[in-house]
C-alpha cells in the first residue's frame, strides 16, 4: 500500500530525512520509535504533504500513485490520514462544520455523492459514541481550548469519520492519561481491518500494549536504523535508545 524508497527531505539547508526505506502492506500495523528530533514528525509531514519540507531524493508510492506529486487534499482523498502531534486550533470554525466539509470533500474526490444531513448526523453519532466525544466539544471551535487529551481524541474521531486507508498517528498518546489512551486505542482498533493500515509514531511501549504492532522501526538521525517485531519495542523500553545509538555509531 505504501512504499517509501530512499526518501531524503529537509528544510532549507538542513537535511532531516536521510534515506528512509519503508513498506507497509494492507492489514498491517507499524510503529516508529526514536529519540526526539530524529525525524519522525518530519516523515509524517512529508507523507501528508506539508509544503515547507523539500524532498530532495527518493520516491513514495501510495496504492500505485506517486504520492509526492499530490496536493495534501488529494492525498487525503486517496486515503491518507495524519493525526497531528500538535493539532491546530481554529477559532470561529466549529468542529462539526469542519468535519462535514472534510467528509464531503473527500467523498467528492472519490466520486461519491455528498452525505445528506441525516446520513452525516448518523455517522457522526456513531463515531462520537466510539470516541466518547461529548456533543458540546463538537459544537465548539475546532480544538480551541480543548485539553491535550480532547485534541488527540478529536484527531482519532476525525480519522474514524474519514475512514482512510492509511492512518499515521504522530504521538497520539503523548499527554494522555491511561483512560484516554484506552479510548484512543479502542478507536484505532475498531478502525483496523484487513484493508487498511496504521503507522503509529510513539515514544512509549504503553500505547503498543493496546495497539499491537506487526513491525517496529527505530528512526535515528533521519534513517531507519533497526526494524523488528513488537519485541523491539519492549527492548527499547528496557534499554533506552542508547543501545541503538551505540550500535549505529559502532558501524
Amino acid at each position: 500500500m505504501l512504499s517509501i524508497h530512499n526518501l531524503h527531505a529537509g528544510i532549507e539547508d538542513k537535511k532531516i530525512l536521510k534515506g528512509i526505506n519503508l513498506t507497509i502492506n494492507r492489514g498491517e500495523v507499524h510503529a516508529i520509535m526514536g529519540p526526539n528530533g530524529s525525524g519522525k514528525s518530519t516523515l509524517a509531514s512529508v507523507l501528508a504533504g506539508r509544503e515547507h519540507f523539500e524532498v530532495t531524493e527518493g520516491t513514495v508510492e501510495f496504492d500505485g500513485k506517486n504520492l509526492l506529486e499530490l496536493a495534501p487534499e488529494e492525498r487525503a482523498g486517496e486515503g491518507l490520514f495524519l493525526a497531528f502531534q500538535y493539532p491546530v486550533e481554529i477559532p470561529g470554525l466549529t468542529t462539526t462544520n469542519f468535519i462535514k466539509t472534510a467528509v464531503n470533500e473527500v467523498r467528492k474526490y472519490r466520486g461519491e455523492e455528498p452525505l445528506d444531513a441525516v446520513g452525516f448526523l448518523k455517522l457522526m453519532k456513531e463515531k462520537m459514541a466510539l470516541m466518547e466525544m461529548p456533543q458540546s466539544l463538537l459544537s465548539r471551535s475546532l480544538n480551541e481550548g480543548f485539553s491535550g487529551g480532547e485534541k488527540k481524541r478529536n484527531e482519532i474521531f476525525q480519522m474514524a469519520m474519514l475512514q482512510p486507508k492509511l492512518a499515521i498517528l504522530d504521538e497520539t498518546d503523548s499527554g494522555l492519561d491511561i483512560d484516554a489512551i484506552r479510548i484512543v486505542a479502542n478507536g484505532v482498533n475498531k478502525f483496523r481491518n484487513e484493508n487498511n493500515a496504521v503507522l503509529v509514531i510513539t515514544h512509549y511501549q504503553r500505547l503498543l500494549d493496546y495497539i499491537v504492532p506487526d513491525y517496529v522501526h527505530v528512526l535515528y538521525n533521519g534513517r531507519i536504523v533497526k526494524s523488528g517485531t513488537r519485541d523491539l519495542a519492549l527492548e527499547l523500553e528496557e534499554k533506552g535508545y542508547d543501545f541503538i545509538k551505540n550500535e549505529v555509531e559502532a558501524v
Partner: protein
Amino acid sequence: MSTVDNIKEQLSRLQSEQRDSGLKNIRQNALNAFDKMGIPNTRHEEWKYTRISALFNQDYQIQNGQPVAISAQDIDAIRLPGHENAHELVFVNGVFSQPFSKIHPNQELVIIPLEEAANNEYASIVSENLGHSSRYAKDGINALNTAWMYGGVFIDVKRAKIASHPIYIYHVTDSRTANILAQPRSLVHLNEGSQVQVVETFATIGMQSSFTNQVIELVLEEDARLEYYKIQNDAVHASQVSTTHVRQRGKSFAHTVTISLNGNVVRNNLNIIMEAPYCESHLYGLYLQKGNSHIDNHTLVDNVKPNCYSNELYKGIMDENATGVFNGKIFVRQDAQKTNAYQSNKNILLSNNASVNTKPQLEIFADDVKCSHGCTIGSLDKEAMFYLRSRGVTEKSARSLLMHAFADDIMEHIKPEAIRQYVDKLISERLEFDTI
C-alpha cells in the same frame, strides 16, 4: 469654476433663500467653517492616508429640488431582508423621500423631517444635539454636510419604549445621468429607557461617480439602548464619508457593527462620547476589500466620566490592491476614573499589494483605568491551511473556511437574524468568488 467653488456658490444661494429658520444659523456657521477649511487633504492629520480631495476634481450634481428618476422597482431591488417588519427610510441623493419611505403606525417613535423638528416641540433637542459631531470631526467635510442640511430626518424614540420595528435607512444614489454628491443627515434621539435598532445601507444606481457624505448623530439618554448596524456594499465607483456620532448619557448602552464590503474610497468616522458614568459601548467592524478599494475606519471613544466600559474589535481581510486604515482613538479624561476600554484590530492580507495602516491612539489623563489595545497584520495561518487540507478540504474551501472563521467573532454580534444571514451570504459570495 472649481467644484468646491461651485458648491460654495450653490450653498450661499440656498442660504439666502431663507428656507426655514430653525436650521439657518447652524448651516451658516458650517458654511463659514467649510469656507475656511475646504475639503481635507492628506496634510490634515486625520486624513493622512485617505485621499478624498482628488474626488473633488470632478463635478457633482447636488440634490436641490430636481425631479428624481428613482422608481419603486429600484427601491425594491435594494431592500434588506426583514424589511416587512421595519420602518424603511429612503434617502434619494441625500434627501429624505417620504413617498418611498414606509413608517408603520406605532406608539413608540416619531419620524419627521429634520426641518420640521427644528421648528416644533423638538426644537430644543435639535439645537442641543444637532452638529455635536463637528466638535470631534474638525474638518471641512463634516462642515459641508451641515452646511447642506436640507432634507434630513429626525427620529425621537419615546421614553421607556422599545421600538417594535427596526429602522432601516437606505441611502440611494442615482448616478445614471450625472455624478452625484449626496449628503444625508439624521438626528436620532433615544429618550430615557428607550430601545431601538438602526440599520443603514448604501446603494448607488447608475454608472457615474457617487460621493455620499453622510452624518448621523444619535443621542442616548439615560438607560437607553441602541443597536446600530452599518452595511457598506456599494459600487466600486461609489465613495463615501460616513460619520456616526453617538452621545451617551448615563448607563446607556450602544452596540455598533460596521460591515464594509465594497466601494471606492470609504471613510467611516465612529464617535462614541460617554458623557456620564456607567455607559457601555461595543464597537465591532469587519471589512473585506479587494480591487482598488480603500477603507478607512476612524473610531473614537471619549470617556468623559468615570466607570464607563467600551470594547472594540475591528477585523479586516484585504485582497488585491485594496488599502485600509484603522485609527482607534481612546480618550480618558481626567474625571473618567475606573474606565475600562479595550481595543483590538486584526488584519489578514491576502495579496502582496494589499496593505493596512493601523494605529491605536490612547490618550489617558486618569490614573485608575484599565485600557488595552493590540493590532495584528498577517496572512492566512499556514499551519491551519495545512491542517484543513490534510483532511481533504481543498485549498479553495480551506481559505474560505478560515476567512469565515476569522470573520465569525464579528458576525456573531449582528443580532437581527435576517441581517446576519444577509451579511453572511454577501461574505460567502465574496469569499467563494475571491479565492483561487
